[in-house]
């Protein structure tokens, strides 16, 4: 009887740990789509003045959602990661270099990256719209496409919002 109780207690303990972990994962996913940092991005070259071309991948439950996530990822990479793979010609340093700025200006970025949000003004498909599509599981797609990011305009937007400084601000 005692060993049975012990078994139940251990079972409950393990269940509690699993529940906590799942809740953390869900919380991250709910926080904002752009928080997930496991996307792939590579430089495809320099575009016209103030733009750069990247190939970026997104994940989603259907190909359309994955394509939208890829757009977010492209803007997110220019803002917070820099583009360090692929051909030369892209910014290897991110626009936002202040540590913890993503958390500090959380409200701004949550609004910026909402579905259909401002981020869409700074990214566009760079080719005829063809995408690479991989079916990962029965419920997950991975979609990659070449996009053009207006990083100069993006920088100006962040400068206007006071998130990054203008070059030589204070002089």
């Amino acid at each position: 009887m005692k060993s049975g109780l012990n078994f139940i207690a251990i079972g409950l303990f393990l269940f509690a740990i699993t529940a906590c972990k799942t809740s953390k994962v869900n919380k991250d996913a709910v926080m904002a789509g752009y928080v997930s940092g496991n996307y792939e991005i590579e430089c495809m070259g320099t575009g016209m003045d103030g733009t750069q071309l990247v190939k970026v991948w997104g994940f989603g439950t259907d190909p359309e959602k994955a394509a939208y996530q890829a757009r977010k990822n492209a803007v997110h990479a220019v803002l917070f990661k820099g583009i360090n793979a692929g051909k030369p010609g892209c910014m290897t340093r991110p626009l936002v270099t202040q540590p913890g700025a993503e958390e500090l200006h959380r409200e701004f970025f949550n609004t910026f990256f909402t579905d259909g949000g401002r981020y869409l003004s700074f990214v566009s498909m760079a080719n005829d719209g063809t995408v690479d599509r991989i079916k990962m599981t029965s419920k997950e797609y991975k979609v990659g496409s070449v996009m053009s990011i207006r990083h100069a305009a993006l920088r100006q937007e962040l400068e206007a919002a006071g998130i990054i400084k203008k070059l030589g601000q204070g002089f």
Partner: protein
Amino acid sequence: MKKQIFILLLMTAWTSLFAQAKKPTLMVVPSDNWCIKNGYTATFDEMGTLKTIPDYKLALQNETDLLMTIGKINTLMADRGFPLVNLETAIKNMEQESAEVSMMSSKAGSNLIESPIDILQRTANADIIIQLTYVINQEGPQRSITFMLQGLDAYTKKQIAGAQGTGEPSFATQTPVLLEEAVLAHIDDFNSRLQQHFDDLFANGREVVFQSRVFDGSPIDLEEVFNFKNEELELGEIIENWISENTVQGRFSTTTYTQNVIRFEQVRIPLYDDKGRANDTRRWLRDLRNLLSKNPFNLTSKIYTRGLGEVWLIIGEK
């Protein structure tokens, strides 16, 4: 009276509120390496030793690609709200000024006085030099460009920003297109690093070099001992203490200390003085000169500045 005090306070507050630090000037120049490799040099005899220096004027007159690259960088920097000094214009202005100085005279026939040091200082200069180097690489039918921008602090001699890399090899691309792509590819990374330097400047003060020297007609040198604030100290040590008290977090390092020269490097001076006004090396050092002119020192000294970043205090004469 109260009204006058109020107005004075208001003016002080206004000055403090809108005070801006002295803006450093930036200029793009081709590197010595590029000039020498492309044959744009001038040679002169300096006390029996032949010296080769870059000839910027000749390079700008002959190399359209160079002119275009400098122009592109200048345009992009102006778009960022940070216009640069244009090398070509600076050279022309310098020549024009030389001509005007030599021709100008008063109605009575007096000419302008210009010491050798004035002539020496009348050069195209900037506080930060953006040194440009590029090489066109040819590999079979393919061409690529290796491009390098170095932001050099003209006074501390430190590289404060940089961006470099080799572009994608291409079969058909012309040199101007390769160069334009290279500028577009690197300028933002370069500016990001430059901004980091400016942030450091605002946080820790402007880094300058300070030298204290002695005129040969001076009755004393820097090892002369004075009783100052109840301490027996050498003049050099008194200057050192003053620097420690008047730098951001007391940051400086003494690199040379002799009876005739003391050189302080990495001296971090505040961007604003105690009244909230923009500071520069001359303004910063004025208090030390005033201190030395009083008891127990009673010394005459001369402040000599080299741009925004280096200042000398020469003791003994004006």
